[in-house]
């Protein structure tokens, strides 16, 4: 009974994809939450939906079309954000919503809400083919290589953005490459989680890891581990509860978040009680000595 999901090829592919996507979204998400870019992650997912819809409609390769659309959105956001009158958050809001609206407009022109569009919105992990899996794995390897090579400048910029240039880091170049890696992550996660749930997978594992450690390398490893394990567990559990796999992945991550938060509150209360006890004992000792 417990091993039943492993007997089916589509479930095996789904679990592998969810593990990989869970790990990579968490890895990129570490920099997203520490740089307070959760909004761009959410916006890019919606923006890339537009690219996915256009690709489906004109019969263009989904991965290529969505990636190009995402890269173009990132380029426009960076250009607009450099104008002092606009600002980063407004640029993200305008461009990603407009790109999303293009997708909706294309759907309304087509006058049909096809399965492909639904897959892009809510994810369709159980429909992943071997070819999809290879492409997703290829994209994840590419993203991992980018993070590996840009690790030091990314850490520097994330910690002390204003000073990084003084230390010889090309901030614009590193930020542009990171934005492209973020867009690629969203594309890779689209089929697994869908537009509506990607932001949660980017944010929850790193936030949980942040609550557990004060060391950056440990935070990164814990976040990737939580992302990968909850990705796998979400798909596995979805088999038994008969709920959408993408939603189950996010719900498992949310449960881990709630448990960690509760544990943290319990620990701080314990610490507070211990401190109060120590204070009472010290007071008692003082009064005895007096």
């Amino acid at each position, binding site marked *: 009974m417990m091993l039943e999901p492993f007997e089916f090829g589509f479930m095996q592919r789904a679990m592998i994809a969810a593990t990989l996507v869970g790990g990579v979204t968490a890895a990129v998400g570490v920099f997203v939450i*520490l740089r307070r870019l959760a909004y761009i992650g959410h916006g890019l997912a919606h923006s890339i939906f537009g690219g996915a819809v256009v690709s489906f409609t004109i019969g263009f390769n989904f991965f290529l079309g969505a990636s190009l659309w995402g890269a173009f959105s990132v380029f426009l956001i960076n250009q607009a954000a450099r104008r002092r009158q606009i600002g980063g958050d407004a640029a993200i809001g305008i461009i990603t919503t407009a790109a999303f609206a293009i997708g909706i407009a294309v759907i309304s022109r087509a006058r049909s809400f096809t399965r492909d569009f639904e897959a892009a919105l809510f994810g369709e992990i159980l429909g992943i083919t071997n070819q999809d899996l290879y492409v997703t794995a290829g994209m994840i390897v590419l993203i991992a290589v980018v993070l*590996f090579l840009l*690790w030091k400048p990314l850490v520097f910029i994330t910690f002390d*953005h*204003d*000073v990084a240039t003084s230390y010889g880091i090309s901030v614009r170049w590193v930020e542009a490459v990171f934005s492209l890696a973020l867009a690629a992550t969203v594309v890779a996660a689209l089929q697994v989680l869908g537009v509506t749930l990607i932001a949660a997978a980017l944010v929850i594992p790193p936030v949980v890891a942040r609550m557990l450690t*004060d*060391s950056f390398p440990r*935070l990164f490893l814990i976040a990737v581990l939580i992302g990968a394990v909850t990705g796998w567990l979400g798909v596995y559990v979805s088999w038994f509860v008969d709920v959408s796999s993408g939603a189950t992945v996010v719900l498992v991550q949310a449960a881990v978040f709630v448990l960690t938060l509760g544990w943290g509150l319990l620990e701080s209360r314990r610490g507070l009680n211990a401190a109060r006890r120590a204070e009472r004992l010290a007071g008692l000792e003082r009064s005895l000595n007096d």
Partner: protein
Amino acid sequence: MATIGVDALVRLEGVALGYEGAVALRDVDLSIAPGELIGIVGPSGSGKTTLLRSLLGEPERYAGTATVAPDTRVGYVPQVETVDWNFPITVEQVAMLGSWRTRRWLPWTGRAERSRARDVLRQLGIADLADRPIRALSGGQQQRTFLARALVRAPDLLLMDEPTSGVDIKTRHEILHQLAALNSAGVTVVLTTHDLNGVASHLPRLIALGEQTVLADGPPSQVLQPEVLERAYGQPMLVVRSGRETYVLPVPEEAPGAHEDGPPGPDSFDVIGRSGRDDA
């Protein structure tokens, strides 16, 4: 920035600087020789940080020439307010960021860089804090951590933006002592400061900024003059000298006619007392 091969470490000639087309400083002429210890003073918004960062080639330059001697290694210590304190990073990890260019394509740091960072932390007296998260430190310890990040590069020119801002009087003294020691070891130091009495008056050379330009450049006795300071700060200033000490005080605004015989100020100093042992 272009490079020069003469006795000056840095030279700015007729330079105008600013951001996004807005000029912050103009007609800046100055030369910094190796081994100097210089303070940049002026009110908030006078362009102290802009001038400091111009030595890194950062703000936009609209006029003039800026030259730096070849192979000059520059260390920069920002105001600590620019940092993201939520970032989970230890003192040693911050120090090692200074040598990020060594093995730049690898995420981990080599043994030599780690050893260099430990040496610098020891030199600055914060080696025992190496594994502590930086946000858990005091202002002075944080300042020293960022100084360590700059020093792991073994800089020829050290630029510090408000190094004594927000620290207590003891820490200020320690930081100044460390900067003097670095300067004695051959490092050229340029810093900005708001503190005219506790910091600027003790430096050998000051550059006073105001009215979007350099108002005075020279020893404190030449720069800390009432006329210069009034132009810089836009209000009458009183300068008092007692032996080797110089004190600058803003002249309080009084009701018209309150001091017909000149600006108010002390006629003499009353020494209240002095702490410390008397057996020396």
